[in-house]
């Protein structure tokens, strides 16, 4: 019964010992472990990846974009289409003939942006569909939940869009990898730009989504701004999905604050921003300064929903299609040719994650997760957008340049919503992995 | 006064809005007797019964049953003391079978107001079932025991009501127009049943319009008009009482 998966630990001990030695030639290794790890494709002609994205609920459009990116990635890995980033990424082991000669197939599932549903969906992929890797998702709660599930199951998880420090901080896992940046990096990137634009003497008022991601972002941004010399007037928690935020915005008016920081994402961000602008906050003068709004995490898809209101608002993003480096261009070009519109940052992250996984397998010469993890840990690459990038071994967080963007005042097209203000170099956003605690665990 | 007083209604007042439904009503019901309450429509007869079973709280006055004060008690507590009521418009459990309808009150008198018994099987309750079947066949419903009660004729529903009251073997049975809407034959059959119970010594209060029924059953009659008792006595006394005649006829003229 190949479905009985969770009892693998005892069985795998010997395999792990061999892996630690790590000297055997790849063909030998593959055969030696033929039965030893979860969903081993064995001698089959194909390998199955699980794309677990939100298909219903508030992030359905983002999920749809993630899925498009994955489908494109599968095409490119299998040697169809124009190859996309396969042409620009270095170093690269992929040959455009699938992974280790096996054709890549995929299964999809709906996370519903709920941890329970996401885990159920991931379990289906593992138990029923024989997926050897799970990837995707559009919230940190889901990412952390699925990551720990995959760790237990011995399946590699390549996180999709997740921005909380926890994913590669206190909840990091040996089997989980994050390409997306995090709240700390947002803060570190945003700090100097905020100082340059708005000076050192500011009073910030935070509205924060009342859950884990919101809190870590609030903390990160607060640390950054307070280091600049800004004061924090208040940090107010708002219920997730409040819809109407007016009752939280009215107290901002006479709080004496001159900066409003919205630690909201998705629909909450659209609503709170739209409403804050309606309350005249963007045109207000406080303490003889122009009142400003900052949205630390921007997403182009979501920015569409806020319409005109994002103009001139600063924030950060992992990636934007307007980047001109070769990797981004190649990806945008093949995505645009395939679907007729540019990819979102979620699409970029997911595409890259799929490629990185496939490449790691090819490099390791096996699908055996511990070997793949070894190949991914500390992997340095370029040509996938955002310049030279490293998957840090200590916490499985990708380090690369971070974009500080602002809402475009004068867009040249319907997709041209965000304008890159500054590409913050990687060195500026790096941090000591110890600050967030957590423990990767081991590969067994 | 010969017998033991079972039910004692004293100085009961009740107004609805501005309408005086009961005013200073005093009534004593003797043990073992059948006491009829008659009066024109709107005289307050049903209100009086409702006060007795705890459905309506009187503005003033008390009702005592065997020395226990009923006013302020919950309807189920009053029933548990041994007062059962047969409703004028059938208050049955329409989705349940006829047999179930009768078994339920039997459980109430056996188990009290609450018993947590999910681990006995209904099919094991043969005693209660036999009792219910007996009462039903007594009332001529023996051939309908498995029918859904909601689909019975109105007359049959009234008899089912009666069965539900009788199976509890109450000390006091309050009957609200037990034969209204019945055919002559059914009425006579009900009268017969009630006479048979009377022989067993159950105390009954009957509200009735049908004088045939009243005079065949009642030991004592009280006449209620505009919320007040205007006459009380043996059937023969009431028949000749001019005040009663006026209340009925006068009421008719207005």
């Amino acid at each position: 019964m190949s479905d009985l998966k969770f009892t693998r630990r005892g069985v795998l001990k010997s395999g792990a010992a061999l892996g630690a030695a790590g000297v055997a030639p790849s063909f030998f290794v593959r055969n030696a472990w033929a039965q030893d790890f979860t969903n081993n494709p064995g001698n089959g002609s194909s390998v199955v990846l699980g794309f677990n994205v939100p298909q219903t609920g508030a992030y359905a459009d983002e999920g749809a974009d993630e899925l498009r990116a994955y489908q494109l990635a599968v095409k490119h890995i299998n040697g169809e289409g124009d190859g996309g980033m396969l042409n620009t990424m270095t170093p690269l082991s992929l040959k455009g003939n699938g992974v280790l000669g096996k054709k890549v197939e995929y299964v999809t599932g709906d996370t519903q942006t709920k941890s329970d549903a996401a885990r159920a969906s991931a379990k289906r992929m593992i138990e029923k569909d024989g997926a050897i890797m799970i990837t995707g998702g559009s919230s940190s709660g889901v990412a952390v939940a699925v990551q720990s599930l995959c760790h237990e199951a011995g399946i590699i998880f390549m996180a999709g869009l997740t921005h909380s420090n926890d994913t590669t901080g206190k909840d990091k896992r040996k089997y989980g990898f994050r390409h997306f940046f995090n709240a700390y990096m947002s803060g570190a990137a945003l700090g100097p730009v905020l100082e340059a634009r708005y000076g050192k003497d500011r009073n910030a008022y935070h509205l924060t989504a009342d859950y884990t991601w919101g809190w870590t972002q609030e903390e990160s941004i607060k640390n950054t701004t307070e280091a600049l010399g800004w004061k924090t007037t208040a940090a107010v928690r708002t219920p997730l999905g409040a819809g109407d935020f007016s009752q939280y915005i009215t107290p901002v008016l006479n709080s004496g604050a001159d900066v409003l920081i919205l630690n909201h994402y998705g629909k909450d961000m659209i609503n709170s921003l739209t409403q804050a602008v309606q309350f005249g906050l963007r045109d207000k003068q406080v303490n003889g300064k122009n009142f400003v709004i900052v949205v630390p995490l921007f997403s182009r898809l979501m920015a569409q929903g806020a319409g005109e209101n994002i103009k001139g608002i600063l924030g950060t993003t992992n990636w934007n299609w307007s980047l001109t480096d070769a990797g981004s261009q190649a990806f945008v070009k093949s995505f645009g040719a395939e679907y007729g519109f540019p990819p979102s940052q979620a699409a970029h992250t997911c595409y890259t994650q799929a490629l990185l996984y496939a490449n790691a397998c090819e490099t390791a010469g096996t699908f055996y997760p511990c070997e793949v993890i070894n190949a991914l840990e500390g992997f340095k690459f370029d040509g996938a957008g955002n310049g030279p990038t490293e998957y840090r071994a200590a916490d499985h967080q990708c380090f690369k340049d971070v974009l500080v963007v602002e809402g475009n005042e004068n867009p040249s097209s319907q997709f041209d919503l965000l304008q890159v203000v500054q590409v913050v170099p990687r060195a500026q956003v790096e941090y000591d992995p110890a600050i967030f605690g957590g423990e990767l665990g081991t590969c067994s | 006064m010969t017998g033991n007083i079972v039910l004692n209604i004293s100085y009961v007042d009740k107004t609805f809005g501005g309408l005086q439904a009961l005013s200073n009503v005093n009534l004593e019901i003797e043990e073992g007797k059948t006491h009829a309450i008659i009066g024109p429509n709107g005289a307050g007869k049903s209100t009086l019964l409702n006060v007795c079973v705890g459905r309506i709280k009187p503005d003033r006055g008390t009702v005592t049953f065997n020395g226990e004060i009923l006013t302020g008690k919950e309807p189920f507590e009053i029933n548990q003391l041994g007062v059962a009521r047969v409703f004028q418009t059938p208050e049955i459990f329409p989705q349940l079978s006829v047999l179930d309808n009768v078994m339920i009150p039997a459980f109430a008198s056996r188990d009290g107001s609450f018993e947590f018994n999910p681990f006995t099987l209904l099919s094991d309750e043969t005693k209660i079932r036999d009792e219910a079947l007996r009462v039903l066949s007594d009332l001529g419903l023996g051939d309908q025991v498995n029918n859904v009660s909601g689909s019975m004729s109105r007359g049959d529903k009234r008899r089912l009501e009666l069965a539900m009251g009788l199976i509890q073997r109450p000390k006091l049975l309050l009957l609200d127009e037990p034969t209204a809407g019945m055919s002559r034959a059914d009425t006579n059959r009900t009268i017969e049943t009630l006479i048979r119970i009377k022989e067993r010594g159950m105390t009954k209060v009957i509200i009735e319009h049908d004088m045939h029924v009243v005079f065949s059953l009642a030991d004592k009659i009280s006449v209620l008009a505009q919320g007040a008792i205007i006459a009380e006595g043996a059937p023969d006394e009431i028949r000749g009482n001019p005040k009663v005649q006026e209340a009925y006829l006068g009421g008719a003229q207005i």
Partner: protein
Amino acid sequence: MKLFKLSAKDAIMMAVFIAVVLTMPIWLKPIGAGYPDLLQKFAIFGLFAIGFNILFGLTGYLSFGHAAFLGVGSYTAVWSFKLVSMSVIPAVIFGTVLAGLFAVVIGYVSLRRTGIYFSILTLAFAQMCYKMAYSVLTPITNGETGLRVLRDDPRVVDAMFGVEQNAVPVGELFGINMQGYPGFYFCAAMLILGFFIALRIFRSPFGMMLTAIKTNQTRMRYTGFNTRPYLLVAFVISGMYAGMAGSLMAVTDPLAGAERMQWTASGEVVLMTILGGVGTLVGPILGAGIIKYFENIFSAINESTLHQAFDFLPDSIDNVVVAIISPFVGDGWHLTLGTLFVVIVIFLPGGLVDGISRIRKRFSRKSHASSTTGASEG
């Protein structure tokens, strides 16, 4: 044993039920549902729905907050894993009992009202639990991320006996990991137990009193019954079922998230019950199965799987068929579910079980003498 006595007919039903549940991994395989996680979900939500039906089906009180008990059960079970032992027995017991205690409090208050007022009271309590669990109670619930079992949790009892834990602790019963198929069989055993208890309640005088309360509560009070304790007991029993279902969720997957308590989760069990047939014994389980099947299988079908499925057709027809079907699968699974609700209510009033028995009756054209429907039907 008197406690296990059943009528001949019920005994057969029970036997068939046990056989059907235990063979689920086999007969669900062809329709793609024969894998442990979904099988566990069928059993767990079946149990949840049976319990909900004891309240709603028997008494007619529509609770819109039952997910709160599911959540309480889950959190308690995970805490039991964290503090006491990785054994599932204390987890399930604590989960069920604590959910029962919550049910006593919420039920005692909510049952002071009837009808929609009762529904909204239960909804309000559950929503408060959910909102608190998501935000201010994060120290207890771990908020959005969900409460998880960690290796360095104290686990007093395990520590006492020196039980070693894996890197990732997993619920176990006498040394068997409660994940995968063993987990399913454990849930299935609980489902069978729950079904048996429900069957006994349906066939007991107590069950009859509950049905009578549903039919005519006023009359019950004049018949000498204090209806409140009956209702409260029914409420607590069904809350405990929910708590047990919640703790089983934690057993098979040691994580408890706040969204289990959201009103949509409460609404889901209402829909399951109505879909299968309110007041029937197997209906709610059927309803639970259908909704979970749609959620997990229909949502996973994408265009390429469809193309594979209709590969045998000529290309042009294949494309047409796929174009017609694809809006209803994958990200359109909600659409199918919604349509299914509407269609079933219109064509099978009374839910699946009632509808099926009606159709059967029409075909067999039996005499109408004993056409008892509703509460006592299987």
